């Protein structure tokens, strides 16, 4: 078994119009910039994207939105230092937004990966974000029912990966990666370093390979924050 894909272009070639795509990262930390840019090159339309944020500046997720690929965004915090790309489209009614509390977003994604179709959470009870959702009481306290979230694809950045798809992550870049690999039918992962099976100690594996379908090596990946500080744009 070898899940390695030779190029970024080939790795994202399976993502077509109308697909749902989870994209890892919290702000720039863990954002798979190279995979996103390869996806922009392919240029699918009408994507539903799941990410914690809505992009920053004119690279990565912001560039994907700017390229007109995204019809709907499911996220918790569509603000950033430079949110102009999303903000303009949103206020013009050109992109749909589903706003989800951050912890609920994470738990919905995990539930999608874990075969849990719905769960109850105290989060958002009594607020506008709970409107239309079933409410139930447990032990005298009210909770909101939330549904799992799954996607056709995930684009994730990891640190070390082996050819079976076992992954580790760098520092807090771990954030949504392990969950999105679980919740997507096809998890496409860029790793800074690709190793043979056995190159990661079994105790150190954060995402077991069963959750990963495609892996592509991108040494020295770009950091969104660095690109934005340099005023970069893609393409």
């Amino acid at each position, binding site marked *: 078994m070898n899940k390695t894909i030779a190029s970024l272009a080939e790795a994202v070639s399976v993502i077509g119009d109308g697909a749902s795509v989870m994209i890892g990262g919290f702000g720039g930390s863990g954002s798979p910039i190279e995979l996103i840019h390869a996806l922009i090159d392919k240029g699918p339309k009408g994507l539903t994207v799941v990410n914690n944020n809505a992009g920053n500046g004119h690279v990565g997720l912001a560039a994907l939105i700017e390229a007109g690929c995204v019809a709907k965004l499911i996220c918790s915090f569509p603000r950033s230092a430079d949110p102009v790309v999303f903000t303009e489209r949103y206020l013009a009614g050109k992109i749909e937004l589903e706003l989800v509390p951050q912890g609920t977003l994470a738990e919905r994604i995990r539930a999608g990966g874990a075969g849990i179709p719905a769960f109850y959470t105290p989060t958002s009870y009594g607020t506008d974000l709970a409107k239309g959702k079933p409410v139930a009481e447990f032990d005298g306290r009210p909770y909101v029912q939330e549904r799992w979230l799954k996607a056709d694809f995930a684009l994730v950045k990891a640190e070390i990966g082996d050819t079976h798809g076992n992954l580790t992550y760098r520092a807090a870049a771990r954030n949504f990666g392990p969950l999105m690999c679980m919740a997507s039918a096809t998890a496409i992962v860029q790793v800074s370093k690709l190793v043979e099976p056995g190159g990661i100690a079994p105790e150190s594996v954060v995402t077991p*390979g069963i959750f990963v379908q495609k892996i592509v090596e991108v040494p020295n990946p770009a950091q969104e924050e660095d690109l934005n500080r340099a005023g970069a744009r893609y393409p």
Partner: protein
Amino acid sequence: MTSEKLSNAQIAWRAAQDIADGAYVNLGIGFPEMVAQYQPPGRQAIFHTENGILDFGPAPKAGEEDWDLINAGKKAVTLKPGSAFFDHATSFAMVRGGHLDVAILGAYQVAQSGDLANWSTGPKGVPAVGGAMDLVHGAKRVAVITEHVTKDGKPKLVERCTLPLTGVGCVTRVYTSLAVIDIDGGKFMLREKLGSMTLDALQALTDAKLHTDGTVGELKVPALGG
């Protein structure tokens, strides 16, 4: 004529032939574990054990056991390169979340609806379920390996399970000591049978009706011990 039947090793061998290279597989404790020995040359499955290991290998030599390195049957195993450890919640996320390609389980009874009974023979004794009820949900394909009939000759492939259910409508293929049978649209579809056995003889050992779509292959396996 009906005295000819496959050994457990031969049933396991037959089930192993349907496992693709790179498949993620969970083998139930006991008899199903035997399937791992018969992977076709050139194919390598990755075995999952619900207590928290992916890609484990065969038992170590006696005396070389590490009792923190065991499978779901609590037998000592070894690791292959590329293995991983994880907690029980993650392990059953793999199971329930549809990440396993195949689960192969034993059975007391399988119904033509795909219902499976394999955890309890009734209200006597101490009940114990383990991961069986989880495994029947989520794996992309749930197969059963079993003798075609019970020790006292009663059918195990039935119209309706009489024993407590493990899962509803979950089994899609059954490998028995006499035949390979798919479950499709609430029917037993006979795919392969021993060449020495007539359809009537096989039907006589089966509680529910066996259907065919015209072609029934011969169930051929190599000579194997076990």
